[in-house]
């Protein structure tokens, strides 16, 4: 059974239909890259998956859990949305670290707050030590153990993005989404962030990466979606997409992107 199943997702902003019935699915451990020109709806799709936008219709299912059904208003209640969010993680283009917390604080803030809530409900919860240890382990994975007491403003862009990745992983999402994680970085820093993302693949994480880095999409993704004007124009293995593009839009997009 597919881990993620998105069916006929539609999203309007006012009268503009930004997502026009998007459907796809992915398996556990897969890496899905989404490519497409500016304004094609890639960010909007990720934001709908993370419930930062509410889709107008369609459904989202992760494993057994139906997380969203556009026909049922019950899926739009804010407490339900908050719970459903934890199936997904999101890494932003602009990092969005919390400036007033250290690296460790950024990683542990949400976990500490939810542990506190959990105590009230069940009396049982993850201890601060356990949370910190998990954070240290993740920082080691993104190669930043030595920065755990630094503030975001003291880090390079690449380091900030690696912290943001570790922060998203703290909540053990089933699916980790990246929205152009390296667009705000220069080439040197891009490499270190992409290396980290590639490293996560071997760790059996399921990921969706919106990217303009064609080389990365080709080498790391198991499957690629090409979006144009709010629809999935083409979907396939990197080989199929890059070597045998079918639609003329994809062909001209690749021509532009690869030259």
């Amino acid at each position, binding site marked *: 059974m597919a881990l993620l199943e998105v069916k006929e997702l539609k999203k309007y902003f006012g009268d503009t239909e930004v997502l026009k019935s998007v459907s796809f699915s992915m398996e556990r451990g897969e890496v899905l890259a989404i490519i497409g020109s500016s304004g094609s709806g890639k960010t909007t799709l990720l934001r709908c998956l993370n419930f930062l936008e509410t889709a107008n219709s369609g459904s989202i299912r992760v494993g057994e859990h139906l997380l969203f059904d556009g026909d049922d208003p019950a899926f739009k209640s804010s407490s339900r949305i908050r719970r459903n969010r934890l199936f997904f993680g999101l890494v932003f283009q602009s990092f969005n670290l919390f400036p007033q917390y250290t690296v460790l604080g950024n990683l542990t803030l*949400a976990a500490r707050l*939810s542990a506190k809530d959990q105590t009230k409900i069940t009396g049982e919860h993850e201890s601060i030590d356990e949370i910190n240890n998990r954070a240290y382990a993740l920082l080691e994975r993104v190669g930043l153990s030595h920065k755990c007491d630094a503030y975001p403003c*003291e880090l390079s862009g690449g380091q900030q993005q690696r912290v943001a990745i570790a922060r998203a992983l703290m*909540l053990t999402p089933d699916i980790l989404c990246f929205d152009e994680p390296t667009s705000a970085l220069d080439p040197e820093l891009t490499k270190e962030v992409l290396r980290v993302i590639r490293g996560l693949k071997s760790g059996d994480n399921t990921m969706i990466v919106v990217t303009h880095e064609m080389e990365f999409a080709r080498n790391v993704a198991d499957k690629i979606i090409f979006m144009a004007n709010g629809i999935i124009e083409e979907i396939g293995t990197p080989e199929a997409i890059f070597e045998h593009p079918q639609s003329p839009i994809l062909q001209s997009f690749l021509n532009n992107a690869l030259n």
Partner: protein
Amino acid sequence: MSDFINVTLHLLEGFGTTLGLFFLTLLFSIPFGLLLSLCSKARFSPFRYLIRGFIYIIRGTPLLLQLMVVVYLPGIVFQSPLTKWEMFHGNTALSYFCGALFAFVINYACYFSEIFRGGIENIPKGQFEAGEVLGMTKTQIFFRVILLQVIRNILAPMSNEIITLVKDTALARTVSVVEILFCASEILKVDFIIWPLFYTGVFYLVFNALLTFLFGCIEKKLSRYWK
């Protein structure tokens, strides 16, 4: 010399009232201003316009006028001056003080609410969204993530307003609050000496210097997080 000490002691007493008015105004107007700023962003539009209209009126009229309205209007409308109100037990000084305090709180809350609104609107949307995707509640995001950033944004305009407040307390004299200027003019009336009136300036200056120093410290503390 004994004159100088006596005058100083007398003025200090008045300055106590000045400080009381100052601190109590801050104590109430900051939370009230925060409430107003949140209400002025409410989804329900009639309510939002009501709040914004109120803020507009308060900011567009002189504080001096508002003071007079609060202190004298009850006497005209209800035929019962503030001093007769049961809560004050006929205590004239207390009733005038509370009337003035009320006017100051409303006035400054409106100014603060506009500063807060600007401070909140200047926070990058990504900060809210980062909190949301981490499963935090709106309240948690506000208090744990946003608030300190708002404080940083509003520090400069707030310190201006607060220093203005120190000086504005002198207006309370017009509604018989015995603050430092009132005391100085009493001395002038009774003892015919004028220098204490000018001497009051020293009190304001020293206190404002302290505040400026304090704001400097806070700014230094916060600058650690933002380069």
